[in-house]
């Protein structure tokens, strides 16, 4: 068996990788802190946040307010933008020194990119894209719940002999706790030592914008290929209901709407009170992202569409013909 750097008997503590972008911690990192806080309390373990970047000190306080007992803060101009190899170098050194038992990362593009590289460098097990985490009864091993085959099969994965037990978790699976500004913690600056070979990939350009946050939406009006790119009625309805517009991956790939709106396996897991799904076929890749919705309404012109299996109320009709009078009625009612 390939051995990890250290074994279970030397391992201690729970780590959360704190992903940051544009002067903010990622939502999924805060969600992980809330979840990891519970695991830490359950096992009386210390919860450590790992924060890398340039000039990101202020974010360490956010992590503390959200539950971290300690933050390992690595700052360097070379870390200003996420790059696989410099980040992997610094995190590997920290893991080797502190020997965490559990190490959690968000399943964002960068989080998955880093986790995959780290797991091999550390020769340990990684449970990717978890939809839930728990501790096993007696062993206290981390159990990661994952879906396979597009969402149809659920498996629980554990890592018995190798440390850290690594997992990535999809954004929106856990909920962020309220910050407690009075929490005190230990913020430790760490040395950043990079090698010349970590520098081989160059970021020529990075363009990001602050997107929508569907994981917090109470009402979501989502559209798929059936909208043929016309989201105007969906937007109107979202506005009237105080909600947000979401989309399938197809709609995003077609360029009809931003990627921040994508729901599903490779998008966001949402938990609205109400989701209205328009022109969406109901692929498992998509439906896993609305599983936790309180009420689901589907409108699809194909009466046989799979989406109706995942809806509380189904309308088998043209979405435009149904949404138009619906929007009109709501407007009338509100005018009264």
């Amino acid at each position, binding site marked *: *068996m*390939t051995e*990890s750097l250290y074994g279970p008997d030397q391992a201690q503590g729970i780590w959360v990788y704190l992903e940051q972008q544009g002067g903010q911690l990622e939502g999924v990192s805060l969600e992980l802190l809330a979840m990891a806080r519970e695991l830490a309390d359950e096992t009386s373990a210390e919860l450590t946040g790992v924060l890398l970047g340039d000039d990101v000190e202020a974010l360490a306080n956010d992590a503390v307010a959200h539950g971290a007992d300690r933050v390992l803060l690595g700052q360097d101009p070379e870390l200003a933008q*996420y790059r696989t*190899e410099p980040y992997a170098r610094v995190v590997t050194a920290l893991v080797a020194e502190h020997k965490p038992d559990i190490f959690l990362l968000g399943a964002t*593009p960068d989080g*998955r*990119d880093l*986790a*995959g*590289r780290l797991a*091999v*460098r550390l020769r*340990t*097990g*990684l449970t*990717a*894209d978890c939809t839930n985490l728990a501790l*096993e009864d007696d062993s206290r091993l981390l*159990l990661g719940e994952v879906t*396979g*085959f*597009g*969402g*149809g*099969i*659920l*498996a*629980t994965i554990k890592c018995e*002999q*190798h440390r850290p037990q690594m997992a990535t978790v999809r954004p929106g699976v856990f909920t962020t706790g309220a910050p407690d500004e009075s929490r005190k913690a230990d913020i430790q600056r760490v040395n950043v030592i990079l090698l010349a070979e970590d520098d081989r990939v*160059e*970021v*020529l*350009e*990075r*363009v*990001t914008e602050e*997107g929508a946050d569907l994981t917090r939406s109470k*009402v979501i009006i989502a559209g798929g290929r059936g909208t043929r790119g016309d989201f105007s009625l969906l937007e109107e309805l979202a506005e009237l*209901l105080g909600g947000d517009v979401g989309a399938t991956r*197809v709609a995003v*790939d077609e360029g009809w709407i931003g*990627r921040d709106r994508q729901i599903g396996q*490779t998008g966001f897991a949402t938990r609205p009170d109400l989701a209205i799904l328009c022109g969406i076929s109901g692929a*498992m890749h998509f439906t896993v992202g609305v599983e936790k919705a309180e009420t*689901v*309404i589907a409108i699809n012109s194909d009466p046989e569409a799979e989406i*109706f*299996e*995942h809806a*509380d*109320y189904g*309308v*088998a009709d043209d979405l435009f013909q*149904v949404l138009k009078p619906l929007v009109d*009625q*709501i407007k009338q*009612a*509100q005018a009264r």
Partner: protein
Amino acid sequence: MSGTNHRDLRIICCVKVVPRPEEVSVDQDTMTIDRANARSIINPPDMNLLEMALQLKDQHGGEVILLSMGPPLFDEYLRVGLSLGADSAYLLSDRAFGGADTLATSYTLAQGIRRIRDERGCDLVLCGEESSDGATAQVPPGIAEWLDMPQVTYAGELSLVDGHLHAVREVKGGHEVLKAPLPAVVSVRVGVNEPRFIDFERKAWAENEAPVTVWAADDLDLDTEAIGLTGSPTSVSGLGQARSVERRREVIEGTPEEEARALFEQLQTFLRVRA
């Protein structure tokens, strides 16, 4: 590779064969995945990586080499890839590889790539975004680490500029453009292109003559402790059919106006909260 000489471009494409997702089920008694009744397909994201490779070959010339780890039945699917335009294929197939998680899978594939690189060269390793049957997107960075190559995940566009790879990579809320030296490992975003159809002129060759080299564990320079079940730190401790949430599945019928009215009634609670 220099800017003027792309003739030697060797692209290794990691392609996996997976059961059709809708045809697998869980055998609750044995807690195993029952794929006996499932037909297989090439992992859909891998069709996108193959298309990407073939486009690079169309542009720069060179060779597209398929690589897969799996049982002998994969042979048939590799030949599909050959009839699409790939030049040769390697199948890593051995009982000892069975039960591999991402650590062991990426190691085995990496050792296969090393041997191909030694014998034929390698400028680029292309992977799909993720495989639909289990692990998620961790094999490509794993291969890159085993081979000490740079990695670019979730790439949408690739081009070769002066012997370097330029890649547009998806990040949260946007994209970035990366420049990496070759050889590099790239995972290609699912759905970035329309995979081409089978080239019927290649079909007979692909099915009968095309070289599909099968390598067993002994054919590779392997640490036998690092492959298959033994080399896999993670294990499955529970398995179930995803309990899809029970929905009411009520059907609303009528003219569009009537349907809209019925929906309007259903939405009352949400409208009240708003008011």
